[in-house]
């Protein structure tokens, strides 16, 4: 569909309500421009009525405050994201170090198995307080704490 050369002028005239006689004559004879004028005038009347309507608008203060709050939330999220990543790295490190003590722990457990039937119960604390066992348990506890921290930060 080809656009009439006066269409832009008709749109402007209809929107502003400023018609020249020539343009008015043209709009009366051009089907496309008459249609454009009808639509533009109707929409202009409608928007005028809607803008003048005194229905209360939402409070801009609320929008402003919401935007500030959202910004603060995002800042806090960005800040805690670093901490979360550090915690995750800690978990991985703890698990890796814990795994490196795996053979030692296995040895300790097998030693316990052979000792338990014969050893007195009084010797048990000594075995458990051995350096390998202490280190292993420490890392397990650290990993659990880091996991717990991450969960509470996420919630």
């Amino acid at each position, binding site marked *: *569909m080809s*656009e009439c050369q006066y269409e832009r002028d008709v*749109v402007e005239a*209809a*929107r502003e*309500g*400023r*018609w020249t006689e020539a343009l*008015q004559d043209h*709009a009366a004879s051009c089907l496309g421009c*008459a*249609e*454009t*004028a*009808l*639509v*533009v*005038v*109707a*929409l*202009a*009347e*409608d*928007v005028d*009525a*809607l*803008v003048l*309507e005194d*229905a209360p*608008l*939402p409070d*801009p*203060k*609320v*929008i*402003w405050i*919401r*935007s500030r709050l*959202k*910004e603060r939330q995002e800042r806090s999220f960005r800040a805690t994201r670093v901490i979360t990543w550090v915690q995750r790295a800690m978990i991985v490190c703890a698990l890796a170090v814990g795994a490196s003590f795996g053979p030692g722990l296995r040895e300790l457990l097998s030693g316990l198995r052979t000792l338990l039937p014969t050893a007195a119960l009084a010797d048990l604390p000594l075995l458990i307080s051995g350096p390998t066992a202490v280190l292993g348990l420490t890392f397990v506890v650290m990993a659990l704490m880091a996991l717990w921290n991450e969960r509470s930060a996420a919630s």
Partner: protein
Amino acid sequence: MISMATVASGVPVTESGLASGVMDGAAFQAFYSRTARRLRAYLLRSLGDPSLADDLMQEAYLRLLRSGLKTDDEDHRKAYLFRIATNLIRDHFRRRRPEYEMPPNLAGDPGLQSTIDSRSDVAQAMNGLAPRDRQMLWLAYVEGSSHQEIAKALGLKTASLKSMLSRARHRMADRLRGLGLQPIERNQS
């Protein structure tokens, strides 16, 4: 640096005003009072639901503030705001119905119909059009947006916009004529 003060309205303001191109509280309030009614009119006629129009209007301003748009050009800011609103309308209809192109079947939806603002013939005629047609007509003939701006806002090709707009205008004119409206001279000078 921003020194915060609070005006009687309770909205924090800065002494720098719009110097950085980013709005402070007072500048936002002024911009809001100049644009909110027109934006609501656009949303209302595009959506047909006053409460939804208010919700999306607030969301549009919120997104504008969060966008960090840096400009002192009021027209640019307003065009950006309308583009955000257009995207929100599009998202709304996409979420609601996959067949975004089709006009809403108002007759079969009494819940929606009851919320439609049908005080004017224009509202009635607009409600019979597809959402995209309503947006195109409004942006072109009320906001005076260029074809390029409309195409960008609606995610269309500029080349095809002209014919789409022409068809939308034809459909709208048919509906207006059907309601007995004839071309009239508005505030002729």
